[in-house]
């Protein structure tokens, strides 16, 4: 892992989006991502909440890394993660109750996200604050991107609609087809199908275009 600290901040940011995308590459945190992605709006808000918590946890762990005893690091990481999730929940309930009413249920799920604990353990506890923050932003944006793509695909194919958030609490439902083309896609089983199909597509594009670009630059 010592090599990761030497790469540029831009590469560190892109790492979380492409090379180590939580869902499409590492296949972590699949359970919550399947649970919430049955419409586009839920996917977008969940992704943003994860982006925020991931970045704040990385910053906090990085600041604390010199005072954490290695033998008890995991309980401390869990405290930091659940603490940030709880704070996010309370602040949302107090200041944006309309949003909280809609996504509050999912926020608590973030505590159990393997991806956040993994970045705290593998990166933030070994690196200084700026790379840790960039890493958190990169992983968070990658996760947000994945959830948005999955929920877009599932809602469009499963219900023929797209629920687009037009503000913090408002939304607009675009209806493309007035039937439900492939209803299974919005059901839990379809979540696995959707993630599988999109994961294959993501990796195919990555292998075909990104690797070629990397080869050409060498």
């Amino acid at each position, binding site marked *: 892992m010592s090599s990761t600290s030497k790469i540029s901040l831009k590469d560190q940011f892109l790492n979380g989006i492409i090379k180590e995308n939580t869902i499409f590459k590492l296949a972590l945190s699949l359970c919550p991502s399947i649970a919430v992605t049955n419409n586009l709006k839920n996917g977008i808000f969940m992704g943003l909440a994860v982006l925020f918590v991931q970045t704040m946890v990385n910053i906090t762990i990085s600041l604390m890394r010199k005072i954490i*005893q290695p033998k008890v690091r995991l309980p401390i990481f869990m405290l930091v993660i659940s603490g940030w999730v709880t704070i996010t929940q309370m602040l949302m309930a107090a200041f944006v109750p309309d949003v909280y009413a809609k996504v509050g249920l999912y926020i608590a799920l973030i505590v159990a996200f393997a991806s956040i604990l993994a970045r705290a353990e593998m990166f933030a506890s070994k690196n200084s604050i700026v790379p840790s923050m960039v890493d958190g932003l990169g992983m968070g944006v990658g996760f947000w991107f994945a959830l948005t793509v999955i929920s877009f695909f599932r809602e469009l194919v499963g219900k023929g609609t797209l629920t687009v958030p037009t503000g913090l609490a408002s939304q607009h439902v675009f209806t493309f087809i007035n039937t439900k083309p492939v209803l299974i896609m919005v059901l839990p089983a379809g979540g696995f199908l959707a993630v599988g199909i999109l994961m294959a597509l993501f990796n195919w594009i990555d292998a075909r275009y990104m690797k070629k670009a990397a080869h050409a630059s060498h």
Partner: protein
Amino acid sequence: MTGKDIFKITLNLVIVYLIGGFILAFVYANASPKIFKNNEKAEQDALKLLIPGAEFKKLGDWTIHDKHAKYFEAKKDGEIAGYVIQSFGKGYSSYINTFIAVDKEFTVQKINILGHGETPGLGDEIETDWFKDQFRGKTIEHLKVIKGDTKDDIQAISGATISTRAVSEDAVKNGVAFLIKTIKEGGSTDVQHKQN
């Protein structure tokens, strides 16, 4: 590992957790009054949507499916305009939290689904307006669920008969029956009533 190490590690963990606890307590102390006010406001807003322009007074609590629910009296210009009752229906995969507004004759005026965990794409159609609008003007005798076209009763959502029944024959019917029993026949409105 010596005794000194164990002590150091324990102290480290205790201090970090204490600080974490204090931070959470601080945020909670500042946020909780606002959260409480928001919840009250959300409830009032939900009631105002059911009977616009009315003042609401909570009459008491009742129990359905072991869940606590509230019921309210709605007054317009000092006269009773109707009642609103919260009720739960046992659906396919969740309890459906429903608010029902009735007029003085206990005819359903409007219902609203506040929360549920029914199947997306099938059961969640109980939230749509065409389904909820069916309840307008229905008396307790006309809350039967019919598969197929109906104007007198409640038309089932195709693929979600269980969710439809849960709202109509469970939540709404029991809620209205409770109001009739306590308010019309019982007269007294402040009794804590137990219903199974």
